[in-house]
């Protein structure tokens, strides 16, 4: 996290120095700062982790956007077709995510992705209850959800 902070500070300084205190300036500052950090502090363990995290984050955003659009198309399809093809159900998904933030992020992501809506986490944090639109096969659905969990954890950890 400290590294992210440093990167942000670098972005700010860049924007201030170039007198481009706006979105564009900040983005450029961030990218330049990232490069500086990754190239200069290569040995630092935190930075090493951070080096990967940024691309992962970007790839997650792309993935997530894709999923979101797909989700919507699916919903659109179901909403617009006259017959309900749904097979809704609530399933319990065992959690690998541990920290509050991880769980919350996962739950939110699940809610925004196709056919799933997280309802609640069990009080012992072991299980996330998810409402599924097309519950044809529980295993498939669970695998799909776990794939998402993995992606998120990679960004978060």
């Amino acid at each position: 996290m400290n590294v992210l902070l440093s990167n942000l500070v670098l972005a700010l300084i860049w924007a201030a120095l170039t007198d481009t205190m706006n979105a564009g300036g900040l983005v450029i500052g961030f990218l330049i700062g990232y490069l500086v950090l990754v190239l200069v502090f290569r040995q630092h363990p935190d930075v090493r982790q951070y080096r990967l995290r940024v691309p992962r984050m970007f790839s997650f955003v792309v993935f997530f956007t894709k999923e979101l659009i797909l989700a919507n198309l699916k919903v659109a399809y179901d909403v617009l077709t006259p017959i309900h093809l749904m097979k809704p159900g609530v399933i319990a998904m065992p959690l690998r995510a541990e920290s509050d933030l991880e769980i919350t992020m996962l739950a939110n992501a699940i809610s925004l992705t196709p056919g799933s809506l997280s309802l609640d986490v069990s009080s012992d944090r072991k299980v996330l209850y998810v409402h599924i639109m097309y519950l044809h096969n529980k295993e498939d659905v669970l695998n799909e959800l776990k794939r998402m969990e993995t992606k998120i954890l990679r960004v978060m950890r």
Partner: protein
Amino acid sequence: MITDTLAALFIIGGSFFMLVASLGVFRMPDLLTRMHATTKSGVLGAGLIMCGVMLFFIDSGVTLKALAVMAFTTLTSPIAAHAIGRAGYFIGVPLWEKTVKDELHGRYDEETHVLHSSDDQKENEDRG
């Protein structure tokens, strides 16, 4: 010109998903299925329209604001959905009759609102 046309496409898309969301909320059979529609399509609809805004204005300040709107909706919408869904589940809002499975059923503690991870756990605690 091109950006304007792109913006037009984005806002049409956004509006379309808004319509989808509202149709969902209008047509879907039970609370949870309606929430699927609103959570996803609402966020996407607003997001796409905001993309349209970004493209139309092409201004860093506006972009920042539009991004903020997108971020805020993306962040708040699922949280709200969670809160409502949980509350609805808790007060016993009926599920659609064609719901195939409900693993959550009976795992809430009526008194303390503790949610158990399995039926066993609940029974253990009830006994203890």
